[in-house]
C-alpha cells in the first residue's frame, strides 16, 4: 500500500530525469539557455519536495548542468541532504555532486563532518568508498583535522578496497592538515608492504607525492623503496619509485651509485617504453648528482644517450618528444655527449609537430658554440619567417635571444651581427617580446663599448623608420624597441653621424601615439641629443643653426607637455623651460653648449640585476628591530601631534653621513679594481677566451678584419645579418690561413709559454677569434655582496607545511585530535571498528563497546611493542659493538695491534633510521672499492648477524654524516709536532701501524682521490694522519684528531656550527683507568655540548674504562659561533687510576686547538660552478707564497686536500684550482701554482679573516715538512 503511494508520487513528480534533461537540451539547440533556466526552475521545485528520491534526481541533473557551466552552489544544502540519504544510490549522487561543486569556501561543508564520519564507518564498504572519493575532492582543513583519525583507522581496514582509498586520501589530508603527517606516517610506511598490490601502489603514490616536494625527509625510506624496486613487477609502482629516486639522488650521491646498476639492468630488460623512459630519466638524475669526472659512468651516459636516440628516431611522435625532453636534461651536465647528435636535433626542428620543435629548440640552447652560432641562428631566423602562429614564433624569438646571450654572450664573436639580428627581429609582426629585444639592445650597447658606433647608427635608422614598427602594433609591444633605440641614440649621441636628423625623428608628432613610458624616454633623450647638436653647431660658428635647433625644440615640445602621461608631461615641461632659457642666452650670444652638455655628462654603468638583493646587511644592523619603539596603543594619539612639530634635525646629519659613505665606497671600489687589475690570477668575469687571447703570445698580430661599415645599414625588409655570415666565413678562412703561417713560425720559435687554453671547449672552437676585441663590461655588484641567492621558493606553496622531520619520535601533543564532543552523539553505529586509538577514555566512556576497547588496547600495545623493539635493537647494537671490542682483535691483526676501536659518545641523540640508511648506503658497490666495502657489506643490516669483523665496521656504522668524510679524507700524512720528537721508539712503531690502518681507508676511497685530481700511477702518497698528540703523562696519552666537522646529514648549514673532536685515550700504565671525565672551559665562542641536564661546568664523562695498554676513542661535540678565527680551549681530564689495592685521582691538563681549517668541509665543486663563483666577484682575495717546497705537485695537492679539507676542482699541469666550504657556508677557492720549489697560492673567500687564517695554516703545514 505504502509502496503504491510512493510509486504514485514518483510518477507524478518525475517529469524529468537526467536523460530527459539531456534530451531536452539537445532538442532545444536554438534556445538552450532559456530551456535550461526553465529546467532549473523545475529543479528548484523538486528540491522543495520531501521525497529524497526526487531530490536526488534533481541533484543529479544539477551535476550535469554544473558541467555545462551553470553555478549550482545555491543547492549546496540540498546536496548535503542527498549525501545523508541512507540509500547508496542517492548517497552516491550526493557525493558526486558535492565533489563537483564543493570547495573550501562552501559554508555547508562544515555540516557534513558527522555525516562523512558516519559513512566512513559504515558497514557497507561502498558507502565508505563513496565518502572517501567525495572527500578527496572537497576536503578542507577543518574536515581534515576532524576526520584524520577516522581515515587513519581505515588505513588498516580489512578490505583492501577501503585501505587503498584511505591511503590515497591521506595525501589530501596531509596537505590540508600538516600536523597529521607525523602521527600517520608510520602506518603509511607500513602500507608500503601491504599484501594487496593496489594498497601498496597507493602508498607508493602518496609517499612519492610527499617526497617530491620535500625529498630530504624521505631519504631514510630509500632502502625500503630500493627493495620494492627490485622486487615489484607492477610497472606503475616501478615508475613511481624510479621517479622518486630521481628526486632523492641529488641529496645523496651514494644512493645514486647504488641505483645505477639495477636501473641499467631494467633499461636492458624492460619492454615497457614508459618504464624504460623513466629509468633513463633517473639514471640521468643520478649522473647529474654524481661527479662528472667519474670515468666508469661514461658508459651509463652513453647508454642513456643511445637509448634516447632510439626514442627520438622512433616514428612514434610521443617517444620522439620524450626523448628530446630527456636529452635536454643530459645536456645540462654532459653537453658533449648530446652535441654529437646535433644532426638529429636539427632535423627535429623541421618536424611538423610544434611540441617537438619546441623541445628541439630547448636543446639547441646547449649546442651552440662560437663556430656554429651564426649558422644555427640563421636557421632559426628562417623558421621565424616561415612560422605561422605567434606562439611558436615568439618562442623562436626568445630562444634566439637566449642562445645568443647565454653565459654573458660567450658565443658571440661578432656583435655587429648580433645587433643586426636584433634589428631584423623587430620586423616580426605581432610579437609580444618587444621588451626582450629592447633590453638586449640596451645591454649590448651599454656593455660592449666597441659596438656603440654601430649600434647607434642602427638605432638611428630604426627611429627614422619608426612608422614601420608602430603601424598597427601598438598593442603587441614591438614598439618597446623604440624605447631602447631612443635611449641608445640619446645616451651615445656623440657617435651619431647626423644627430640633427635623429632629433627631428624623435620629435615627430606621431611619437605622441606611443605608450607613455616610451614617450618619456623620447623626451629625455631628445634633450641629450639637443645638447650634442648644440655642441657641434656652436663649434661651427653658425650661431643661427644653434638657435634654429632650440626653436625646433620649443616648437615640438609643447605636444608632449600636453601628454596625459604624467612622466612625459613632467619631463617635457621641465626641458621646455630649460630650452627656453637656453634660447634666451643664445640670443645674447652666450655660448651655452658646454653647460648644457654638463647636464648629461658622465657614463652610466650597468648594474647586475641582483645587486640590490645582495647588499649585505651591515653588522649590528637588525632590520627587524624597531628604529623607534612603536608607541603603545593608548599613547599613540597623544604623541602624534608632537611628531608633527618635532624638529627634523637628525635627518641632516644622516644625509651627510651617506654622502661620506658614497665617497668612501667609490674609493674602495677603485682600490678593488686596481687590485684586481694588478692580480694576474684574478679571473675576470668577461668571457675567458677573449682575455686569454690577449695574453697568449702573438695573437694580437692576427689582423682583425675591419668590417666595412659603408654597407647600407638597413634597408627595411632585406635581411642583412646574412652578410655577416659570409664575412665571418671569409674572415675565419683568412684567419685559419694566418694561423697556419703563425704556427709554423711558432714552431721555429719554440713555444715560450702556455696559456690556459685547455679550460673550455674543444680546440677547434678556440681557434675562432672574435672579430672585435670586445670588452664586455661587467655588471656592478655591491661591496661584500652576499653569495647566496636561494629562497626563490614560493612562500605560499602548500607543500612547504609538509616539510616535517618524520624520523623524530612522536610527542604526545602531536597525536591526532580525537572526535569532538559533538561527534559522540552520532557515533551510535555499533560496528564502528575504526574508532580512535587515542581517544581518552574519559570523553565517551559509555559509548565505547568492549570490542573497540580491545582493539584500542591492541593498537596501543602494538605501538608500545614497536618502540620497545626499537629500543632493544639499539641496545643490542651497542652490545654487539662491545663484543666486537673484545672479539674483533683476533680476527684482524692490523686493528689488533693498533687497539683503537671506537665508541660513540655523541651527546646528541642519533637516530637509528639515519644510521641504517647510512649503513645501507655505505655498502654501495663503489667500483674501485676494496677491503672496506667488503667488510662493511659483511656486517649487513644493523640488527641482524653479529658483526664478524670489527675495526672498520663500527667506523662506518655510527659515524653517520661523518662517515663519508672519513672515507674521503683518510688518505694523508702525519702532523709532526715538537712533542713528537721526544717520543719513544715504541710509540713510533705504534704510529706506523696507525698509518697503515689509514692506508686501508684511503684505498677504500680511491674514487675520491681520482676526483681530487691525483692520478693513481703517480708516486704513491706518503701516509698521512690527522691525529696529533693532545697531552700525555705517565698514565695516559690523549691524541686528538684534527677537529672534524659534523654537518647534519640533511645539510642544514644553519645548524652546521658543530665541530666533532675525536680523542683517542691510551692507557700507558699497568692499572685500570676509570671514571674519566673530560672537561673544558667554555669560551664565549665555543662550547662543549654536554648531555642534557648537566650544568655548564660539568664535565663529559667518558663512556668507557681503559684496561692497561688499551686505547679507545671518544667523540666530543662542540658548538662554535664564529668560525673565522682559530680557537684555543683549555681543558682537564680527570680520572681514577685503580690498582689492586688502591685508587688515586689524577688529572691531565691539555689545550684544544681548533684551527680554521677544521671548520672547512671537503665539498666537491664542478668547474663551471667554480668559475661562476669567481665570476660573481663577491669574494675577497689574498695570496701566499711557499718557498722551498720539496715535494711533487700531487703530494702538495693531496696534503692541502687532506689537512685543509679542500677538493681539487681542476688541475692543469702545475696549476690547480681547489675549493672548500666552511660549515657556515663560506666559499674558499684556491689557485695553486708551482714553479720549481716555489708554490704560490692565490685564494679567494667571502670572509677575509677566515681566509687569512686558513692560508696561515696552510703555510704552517708546509713549513713543518
Amino acid at each position: 500500500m505504502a509502496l503504491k503511494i510512493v510509486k504514485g508520487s514518483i510518477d507524478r513528480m518525475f517529469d524529468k530525469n537526467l536523460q530527459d534533461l539531456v534530451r531536452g537540451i539537445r532538442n532545444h539547440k536554438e534556445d538552450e539557455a532559456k530551456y535550461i533556466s526553465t529546467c532549473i526552475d523545475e529543479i528548484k521545485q523538486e528540491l522543495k519536495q520531501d521525497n529524497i528520491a526526487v531530490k536526488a534526481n534533481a541533484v543529479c541533473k544539477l551535476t550535469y548542468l554544473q558541467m555545462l557551466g551553470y553555478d549550482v552552489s545555491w543547492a549546496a544544502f540540498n546536496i548535503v541532504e542527498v549525501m545523508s540519504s541512507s540509500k547508496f544510490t542517492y548517497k552516491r549522487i550526493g557525493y558526486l555532486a558535492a565533489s563537483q561543486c564543493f570547495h573550501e569556501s562552501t559554508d555547508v561543508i562544515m555540516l557534513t563532518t558527522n555525516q562523512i564520519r558516519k559513512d566512513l564507518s559504515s558497514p557497507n564498504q561502498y558507502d565508505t568508498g563513496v565518502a572517501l572519493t567525495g572527500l578527496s575532492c572537497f576536503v578542507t582543513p577543518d574536515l581534515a583535522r576532524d576526520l584524520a583519525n577516522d581515515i587513519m583507522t581505515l588505513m588498516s581496514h580489512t578490505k583492501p578496497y577501503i585501505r587503498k582509498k584511505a591511503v590515497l586520501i591521506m595525501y589530501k589530508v596531509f596537505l590540508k592538515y600538516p600536523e597529521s603527517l607525523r602521527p600517520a606516517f608510520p602506518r603509511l610506511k607500513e602500507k608500503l608492504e601491504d599484501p594487496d598490490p593496489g594498497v601498496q601502489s597507493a602508498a607508493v603514490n602518496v609517499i612519492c607525492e610527499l617526497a617530491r616536494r620535500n625529498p630530504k625527509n624521505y631519504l631514510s625510506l630509500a632502502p625500503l623503496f630500493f627493495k620494492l624496486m627490485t622486487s615489484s613487477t607492477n610497472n606503475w609502482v616501478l615508475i613511481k619509485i624510479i621517479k622518486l629516486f630521481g628526486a632523492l639522488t641529488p641529496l645523496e650521491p651514494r644512493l645514486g651509485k647504488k641505483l645505477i646498476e639495477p636501473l641499467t639492468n631494467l633499461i636492458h630488460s624492460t619492454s615497457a617504453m614508459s618504464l624504460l623512459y623513466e629509468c633513463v630519466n633517473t639514471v640521468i638524475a643520478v649522473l647529474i648528482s654524481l661527479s662528472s669526472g667519474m670515468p666508469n659512468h661514461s658508459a651509463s651516459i652513453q647508454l642513456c644517450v643511445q637509448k634516447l636516440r632510439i626514442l627520438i628516431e622512433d616514428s612514434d611522435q610521443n617517444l620522439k618528444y620524450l626523448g628530446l625532453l630527456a636529452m635536454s636534461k643530459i645536456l645540462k651536465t654532459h653537453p658533449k655527449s648530446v652535441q654529437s647528435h646535433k644532426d638529429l636535433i636539427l632535423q627535429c626542428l623541421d618536424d611538423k609537430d610544434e611540441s617537438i620543435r619546441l623541445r628541439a629548440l630547448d636543446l639547441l640552447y646547449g649546442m651552440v658554440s662560437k663556430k656554429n652560432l651564426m649558422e644555427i641562428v640563421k636557421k632559426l631566423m628562417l623558421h621565424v619567417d616561415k612560422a605561422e602562429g605567434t606562439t611558436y614564433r615568439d618562442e623562436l624569438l626568445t630562444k634566439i635571444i637566449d642562445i645568443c646571450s647565454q653565459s654573458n654572450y660567450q658565443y658571440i664573436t661578432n656583435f655587429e651581427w648580433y645587433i643586426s639580428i636584433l634589428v631584423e627581429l623587430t620586423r616580426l609582426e605581432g610579437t609580444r617580446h618587444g621588451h626582450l629585444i629592447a633590453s638586449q639592445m640596451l645591454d649590448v650597447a651599454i656593455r660592449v663599448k666597441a659596438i656603440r658606433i654601430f649600434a647607434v647608427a642602427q638605432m638611428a635608422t630604426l627611429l627614422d623608420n619608426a612608422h614601420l614598427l608602430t603601424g598597427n602594433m601598438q598593442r603587441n609591444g614591438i614598439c618597446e624597441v623604440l624605447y631602447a633605440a631612443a635611449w641608445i641614440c640619446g645616451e651615445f649621441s656623440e657617435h651619431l653621424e647626423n644627430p640633427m636628423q635623429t632629433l627631428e625623428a624623435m620629435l615627430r608628432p606621431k611619437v605622441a601615439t606611443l605608450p607613455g613610458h616610451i614617450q618619456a624616454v623620447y623626451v629625455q633623450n631628445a634633450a641629450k641629443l639637443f645638447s650634442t647638436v648644440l655642441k657641434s653647431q656652436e663649434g661651427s660658428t653658425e650661431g643661427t643653426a644653434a638657435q634654429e635647433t632650440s626653436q625646433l625644440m620649443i616648437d615640438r615640445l609643447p605636444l608632449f607637455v600636453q601628454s596625459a602621461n604624467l612622466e612625459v608631461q613632467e619631463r617635457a615641461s621641465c626641458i621646455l623651460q630649460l630650452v627656453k632659457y637656453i634660447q634666451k642666452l643664445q640670443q645674447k650670444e652666450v655660448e651655452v653648449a658646454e653647460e648644457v652638455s654638463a647636464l648629461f655628462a658622465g657614463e652610466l654603468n650597468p648594474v647586475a640585476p641582483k645587486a640590490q638583493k645582495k647588499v649585505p646587511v651591515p653588522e649590528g644592523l637588525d632590520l627587524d628591530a624597531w628604529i623607534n619603539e612603536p608607541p603603545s596603543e593608548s599613547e599613540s594619539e597623544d604623541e602624534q601631534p608632537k611628531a608633527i612639530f618635532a624638529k627634523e634635525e637628525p635627518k641632516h646629519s644622516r644625509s651627510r653621513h651617506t654622502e661620506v659613505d658614497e665617497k668612501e665606497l667609490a674609493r674602495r671600489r677603485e682600490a678593488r679594481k686596481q687590485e684586481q687589475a694588478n692580480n694576474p690570477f684574478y679571473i675576470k668575469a668577461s668571457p675567458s677566451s677573449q682575455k686569454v687571447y690577449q695574453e697568449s703570445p702573438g695573437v694580437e698580430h692576427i689582423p682583425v678584419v675591419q668590417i666595412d661599415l659603408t654597407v647600407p645599414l638597413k634597408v627595411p625588409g632585406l635581411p642583412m645579418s646574412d652578410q655577416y655570415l659570409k664575412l665571418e666565413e671569409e674572415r675565419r678562412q683568412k684567419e685559419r690561413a694566418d694561423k697556419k703561417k703563425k704556427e709554423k713560425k711558432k714552431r721555429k720559435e719554440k713555444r715560450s709559454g702556455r696559456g690556459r687554453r685547455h679550460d673550455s671547449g674543444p680546440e677547434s672552437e678556440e681557434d675562432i677569434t672574435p672579430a672585435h676585441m670586445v670588452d664586455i663590461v661587467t655588471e656592478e655588484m655591491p661591496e661584500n655582496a652576499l653569495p647566496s641567492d636561494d629562497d626563490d621558493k614560493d612562500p605560499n606553496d602548500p607543500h612547504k607545511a609538509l616539510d616535517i622531520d618524520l624520523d623524530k619520535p612522536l610527542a604526545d601533543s602531536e597525536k591526532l585530535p580525537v572526535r569532538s564532543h559533538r561527534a559522540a552523539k552520532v557515533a551510535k553505529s555499533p560496528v564502528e571498528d575504526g574508532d580512535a586509538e587515542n581517544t581518552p577514555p574519559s570523553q565517551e566512556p559509555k559509548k565505547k563497546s568492549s570490542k573497540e576497547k580491545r582493539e584500542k588496547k591492541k593498537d596501543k600495545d602494538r605501538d608500545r611493542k614497536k618502540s620497545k623493539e626499537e629500543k632493544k635493537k639499539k641496545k643490542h647494537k651497542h652490545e654487539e659493538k662491545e663484543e666486537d671490542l673484545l672479539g674483533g682483535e683476533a680476527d684482524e691483526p692490523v686493528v689488533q695491534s693498533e687497539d683503537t676501536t671506537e665508541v660513540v659518545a655523541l651527546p646528541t641523540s642519533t637516530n637509528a633510521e639515519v644510521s641504517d640508511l647510512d649503513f645501507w648506503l655505505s655498502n654501495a658497490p663503489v667500483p674501485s672499492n676494496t677491503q672496506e666495502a667488503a667488510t662493511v657489506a659483511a656486517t649487513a643490516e644493523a640488527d641482524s648477524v653479529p658483526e664478524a669483523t670489527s675495526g672498520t665496521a663500527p667506523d662506518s656504522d655510527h659515524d653517520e654524516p661523518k662517515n663519508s668524510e672519513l672515507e674521503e679524507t683518510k688518505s694523508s700524512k702525519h702532523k709532526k709536532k715538537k712533542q713528537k720528537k721526544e717520543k719513544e721508539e715504541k710509540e713510533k712503531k705504534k704510529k706506523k701501524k696507525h698509518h697503515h690502518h689509514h692506508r686501508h681507508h684511503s684505498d677504500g676511497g680511491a674514487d675520491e682521490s681520482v676526483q681530487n685530481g691525483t692520478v693513481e700511477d703517480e708516486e704513491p702518497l706518503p701516509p698521512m694522519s690527522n691525529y696529533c698528540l693532545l697531552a700525555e703523562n705517565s698514565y695516559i696519552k690523549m691524541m686528538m684528531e684534527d677537529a672534524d666537522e659534523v654537518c647534519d646529514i640533511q645539510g642544514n648549514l644553519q645548524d652546521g656550527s658543530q665541530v666533532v673532536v675525536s680523542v683517542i685515550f691510551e692507557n700507558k700504565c699497568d692499572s685500570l683507568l676509570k671514571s674519566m671525565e673530560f672537561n673544558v672551559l667554555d669560551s664565549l665562542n665555543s662550547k662543549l655540548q654536554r648531555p642534557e641536564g648537566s650544568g655548564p661546568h660539568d664535565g663529559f664523562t667518558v663512556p668507557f674504562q681503559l684496561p692497561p695498554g688499551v686505547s679507545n676513542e671518544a667523540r666530543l661535540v662542540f658548538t662554535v659561533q664564529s668560525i673565522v678565527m682559530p680557537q684555543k680551549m683549555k681543558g682537564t681530564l680527570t680520572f681514577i687510576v685503580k690498582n689492586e689495592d688502591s685508587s688515586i685521582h689524577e688529572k691531565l691538563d691539555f689545550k684544544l686547538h681548533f684551527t680554521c681549517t677544521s671548520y672547512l668541509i671537503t665539498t666537491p665543486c664542478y668547474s663551471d660552478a667554480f668559475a661562476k663563483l669567481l665570476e660573481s666577484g663577491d669574494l675577497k682575495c689574498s695570496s701566499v707564497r711557499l718557498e722551498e717546497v720539496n715535494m711533487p705537485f700531487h703530494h702538495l695537492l693531496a696534503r692541502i686536500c687532506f689537512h685543509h679539507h679542500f677538493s681539487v676542482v681542476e688541475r692543469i699541469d702545475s696549476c690547480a684550482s681547489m675549493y672548500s666550504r666552511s660549515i657556515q657556508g663560506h666559499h674558499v677557492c684556491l689557485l695553486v701554482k708551482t714553479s720549481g720549489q716555489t708554490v704560490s697560492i692565490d685564494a679567494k673567500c667571502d670572509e677575509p679573516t677566515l681566509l687569512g687564517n686558513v692560508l696561515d695554516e696552510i703555510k704552517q703545514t708546509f713549513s713543518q715538512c
Partner: protein
Amino acid sequence: MIRAILIFNNHGKPRLSKFYEHYTEDTEQQIIRETFHLVSKRDENVCNFLEGGMLIGGSDYKLIYRHYATLYFVFCVDSSESELGILDLIQVFVETLDKCFENVCELDLIFHVDKVHNILAEMVMGGMVLETNMNEIIMQVDAQNKMEKSETFIFQSTRQDR
C-alpha cells in the same frame, strides 16, 4: 598529480569534466574551451603531449590527450606523472568504458555522465591514480551497480533508458 580530466567531442562540447582543484564554473568552461582549442587544431599524427602553459597550473603541467573517434580524452597532469603511463591510463579508461557500456559511443557518455563519473572514481581519486587494473575496476563498478539496482528496483522498472 592529475589536475583535471576532460572529455569533450570534436566540437568542444564537454562530455565530462573532473577538476581536482577548485575553479569557478566560468573558469572551468574557459579551461575546457581553451583546451579544446589547443587540442583540436593538432594533426592526428603528432605527439599526444602539450605544454599547458598558463592554462592550468603553469609550466610544471602538461596536457596529455588521446583522440578516439568523436571524443577527446584530456588529462592535465604535473611532472610527477609519467607521460606514457598516463597515456596507458587513458587507454584503460576507454577500454573500461567500452566494457561497461558494451561498445561505448559518444551517446553513452552524453546520457550517462554520472556512470562515467562513477567509473572514473574507481580509477582516479582526488587527482591520484587509484587503480590501473581493468578487471578490478570493472568488478567494483559492477558490484556498486548491483547494489544500486537492489535498492531502486521501484523506479528502475518503470524507467529504463537503455
